[in-house]
């Protein structure tokens, strides 16, 4: 008889391939999301043109950061939910808010099982919905979303520039500026980005990846070790 060695079950304790920040802003005529197209392998910029957006149905877009394989799994689970709704044919469709809540329950359940999905997800939808869920299931519905290091670097900038009546185009410009700052400061960021717009009525547009452009490195010399303290 062989002896069985009892060891505690070890689950993923750290993500391997990761995406960085996701930003979102609620505007007067809809919602805008933006993030870069990078999936890093540690500090290596491994996959430079992957989408971190997903559109499970008309009028809803989700975007996420964190472990990329978990994100793919999360997208698949979301698709399944929508497919089940399709088959029910009861005339009811999942609202963006309902999806937001669903993701919150999903992530909370997984973390409670000590097997979390390592993601922070932003949800944008028709009716000017904007929300985010972190890997513990904390669900927040706000007018501004920034995840990961974006919470520290982009959120203050967004708060400063946000105002009532901000149009989607202005909102997008704000997000691009924030992504520039993130590209300067976040070592896991990329200058190729993608944006998604969802109008009030549910018209959805996800852009192709494009270059941020207009980067300004002239001030780089001012950032010295002395200044960084």
């Amino acid at each position, binding site marked *: 008889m062989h002896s069985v060695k009892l060891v505690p079950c070890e689950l993923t304790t750290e993500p391997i391939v990761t995406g960085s920040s996701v930003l979102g802003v609620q505007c007067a005529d809809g919602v805008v999301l933006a993030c870069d197209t990078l999936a890093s392998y540690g500090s290596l910029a491994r996959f430079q043109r992957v989408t971190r957006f997903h559109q499970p149905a008309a009028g809803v877009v989700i975007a996420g950061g964190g472990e990329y394989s978990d994100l793919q799994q999360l997208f*698949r689970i979301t698709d399944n939910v929508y497919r089940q709704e*399709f*088959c029910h*044919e009861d005339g009811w469709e999942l609202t963006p808010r309902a999806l937001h809540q669903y993701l919150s329950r999903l992530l909370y359940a997984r973390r409670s099982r000590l097997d979390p999905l390592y993601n922070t997800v932003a949800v944008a939808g028709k009716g000017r919905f904007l929300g985010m869920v972190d890997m513990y299931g904390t669900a927040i519905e706000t007018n501004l979303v920034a995840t990961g290091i974006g919470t520290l670097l982009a959120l203050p900038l967004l708060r400063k520039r946000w105002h009532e009546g901000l149009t989607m185009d202005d909102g997008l410009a704000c997000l691009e500026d924030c992504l520039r700052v993130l590209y300067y400061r976040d070592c896991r960021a990329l200058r190729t980005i993608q944006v998604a717009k969802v109008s009030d009525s549910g018209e959805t547009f996800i852009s192709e990846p494009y270059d941020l452009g207009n980067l300004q490195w002239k001030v780089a010399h001012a950032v010295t070790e002395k200044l960084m303290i």
Partner: protein
Amino acid sequence: MAGVGSGYDLSTTTFSPEGRVYQVEYAVKAVEQSGTVIGVRCVDGVVLAVENLRSTKLLQPNSLRRVFAVDRHIGIAIAGIGPDGRQMVSRARSEAQNFRNVYAEEIPPSLLAERLASYAHVYSLYWHVRPFGCAILIGGWDETSGPCLYIVEPDGSGYKYRAYANGKGRTAVRTALNKLNFDQLTCADAVSEIALMIHQSRDIAKDKPYELEMAWISEVCDRQFARVPMSLISSARQRAELEHQQMEGDASPGADAAEAAGTNVMEES
């Protein structure tokens, strides 16, 4: 022991000396008593239709459905015992889901038919289960070969058809189906053809009122499962009733008027 099977019909595990499995044949009988079910593969899609018999006027319109969505590109129509059919639909949905989870692609309708046939077959092999009292029509869109129609029967056999009918009016409808030109038939044409076939196959004196339930997977709805619009069904049905009246007008003008008035339970919702 008197009766049809004479002792050989008590279990699916017993063959009769002539090589028949009576329990399975009884299941087929259950299908044949059902309201007529029709499936037609057209050039631009596949149409599933059911003569949904209404046992009482108290039933809500559009309740107790017999056509179901299984996946975005597949639908199933049930002939026979409703609950048995719904069990098949439920199984079909999980098969479709499972295939997606494994291969990240939609299940080919042919494979779904194969798997459901195996599922039905298993229920004709053991004494502790009874066969499914339903035949199902699987209408789907295959990525490589386009629209298609498959049938799974209670004995676990599966077939691919251009057009198929089962239930009470099957004989008349099958004759009518044989006359269709499948190389040119569109879904829109099929809807009116089917309405007429179902109407003509009915026994005016005996049959219960019915609702015409139709769904299609066609080019017009993005190759996705969709119910045929109620307005389209109603007008097809009205035309069918009119046409039927004209055809039989000389023979018995009185009976058809009663049929038209008595059975029109379809309501615009």
